[in-house]
């Protein structure tokens, strides 16, 4: 080792001289250390799998009612493993399809807010001036709206439905992303490698995608992972209050809300969707935490 340390401090030379790790491998190493992160990743993947293959996994369709088979507790009836609800619908099937609802809302909202955030954040940070001013005004407008109240107002206009819910959640979802991207762009804009590629004649698009994006993608991934719980919670809250998904499409939030009247006698009706909601959201949170430790170099100090 000693011979390798010429002109360098020992810390810089510690990565084994035999194998040079790529940043991704380093990130994976850091990720692997975090057990909760693994649990989170597993939960998220499992629920994702469930929602993608709901048609094959669910024993029944989500809207098949059977009024001679209502309020069966979990395990009471072998045909319905997790029991049935007030209309005799199979609870397991509805929970599985409920995951699809949550993911659909969260996926669209994350995608749109990320793309919009990247576009507006880049414009604001890169061009500055009145573009920045205008985008900042927009951010302030959206940021000053009381979220839940405004979403409910919009739902009143649009009517219930999964796309409407997705829309009202997405509409308010992007300011955080814009702020993040803008700050990152500002931090990198004056750096030498950006100036260098510009002076070599690289187009703005090329600078943005080839040089800027790889540098700012990590905090973005972390932000998405932390944003998803918010979207899932927002959908659940709206549906819970009766401004979300229409019957018979299942949504965990709505299932919790509807089961409120049976809380004294049939608690499983509420426990199961509330548990799904809690588990999935925690999964994303743990995953996000581990991803930040793994991907965000500035959090190295914590290790």
């Amino acid at each position, binding site marked *: 080792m000693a011979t390798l340390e010429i002109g360098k401090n020992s810390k810089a030379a510690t990565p084994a001289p035999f194998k040079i790790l790529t940043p991704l491998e380093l990130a994976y190493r850091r990720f692997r250390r975090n057990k*909760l992160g693994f649990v989170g990743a597993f939960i998220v993947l499992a629920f994702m799998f469930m929602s993608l293959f709901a048609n094959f996994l669910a024993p029944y369709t989500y809207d098949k009612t059977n009024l001679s088979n209502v309020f069966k507790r979990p395990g009471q009836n072998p045909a319905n493993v997790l029991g049935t609800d007030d209309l005799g619908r199979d609870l397991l099937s509805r929970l599985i399809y409920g995951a699809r609802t949550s993911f659909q809302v969260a996926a669209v909202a994350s995608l749109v807010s990320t793309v919009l955030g990247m576009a507006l954040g880049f414009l604001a940070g890169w061009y500055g001036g009145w573009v920045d001013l205008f985008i900042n*005004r927009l951010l*302030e*407008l959206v*940021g*000053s*709206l*009381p979220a*839940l*109240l*405004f979403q*409910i*107002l*919009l739902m*009143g*206009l649009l*009517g219930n439905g999964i796309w409407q819910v997705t829309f009202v959640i997405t509409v308010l979802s992007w300011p955080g992303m814009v702020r993040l991207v803008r700050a990152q762009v500002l931090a990198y804009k004056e750096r030498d490698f950006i100036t260098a590629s510009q002076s070599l004649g690289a187009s703005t698009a090329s600078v943005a995608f080839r040089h800027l994006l790889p540098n700012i993608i990590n905090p973005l991934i972390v932000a998405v992972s*932390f944003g998803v*719980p*918010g979207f*899932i*919670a927002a959908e*659940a*809250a709206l549906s*819970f*209050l009766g*401004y979300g998904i229409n019957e018979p499409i299942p949504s965990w*939030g709505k299932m*919790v*809300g509807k089961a*409120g009247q049976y*809380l*004294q006698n049939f*608690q499983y009706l*509420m*426990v199961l969707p*509330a548990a799904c*909601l*809690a588990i999935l*959201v*925690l999964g*994303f*949170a*743990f995953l996000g*935490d581990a991803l930040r430790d793994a991907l965000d170099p500035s959090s190295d*100090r*914590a290790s």
Partner: protein
Amino acid sequence: MTAYISRRVIEIFFNLLLVSFLSFAIMWQTPGGPFDEVNQPLSKEAKANIRAKYGLDQPFYVIWWNYVKNAVQGDFGTSYQYPKQTIISLFQRYWINSLILGALSVLWSFPVGVIAGVIAALKRNTWIDRTITTVSLVGVTMPQIALIFWGVLIFSVQLKWLPWGNGRDLWQQELRFLIMPVFLFGFPTVGSMARYVRSGMLDVMGQEYIRTAKSKGVAYVSVVMKHAMRNMMIPIVTLFGPTLANAFTGSALIEVFFLIPGIGGFFLTAVFTRDYPLLMAIVLVGSAVLSLTYLISDVSYTLIDPRVRVGGGRK
């Protein structure tokens, strides 16, 4: 400083104008109206009369502009459902419950969050730290309805320790009733506060001047309290804005679930009854409160940290 504040206030005013236009347009387009067609059908003439009385026969932008002019003077119009009371008095009636709930939550959640964050940072990478960070992660991300539900199920339904809700005002409730809503409202704040404070503390504790102070023999507690805590004020103030705004606008979910007659639950009834003047007023006031709290926290930055300059165009 004065120039900065007055500029911000003007900006907030224009922002509110936009918000009012936006929500006014949304409600204008929303199907349904204030008339009860099923139980009290009215003749066409009667409806036209009522529309004229409330000024609803004019074009959209005229109604909006009239509304803004009156709202500036504190007159938010007449609620359709409660025509005998002014909207301000309705606000006072319902808001007080939200305010009590919010204030009590802030009172416990801020100190607890700060203390938890400091402890986590000082005991870094021990089981104490891991417990605090995990619990606060749960607090930050757990959807409120899941939290509320578990709270009610465990403490009200199963253990029967805490009463659930009877729709009375908060000051008429027994003290035990307050425990759960106040806890649930504050819990997410504790989580985010603890996380902010912890990471800020870790940043500060690694700084040279902390090492210098330590090496000069300054007592550990004093180092932490005097040097580190002062630098912790920034994240605390950052969080204070949204939390305060939350406390002001109330939590619709908690109010609905615990049958607290607060502004959030009141808003929901107003949506059901299509009580546009009331809805407008709630959204506008909520938005104004949010903007003001942001302004307050921006101004407080300069008071805490002289490096933060304000009004220079860049921050």
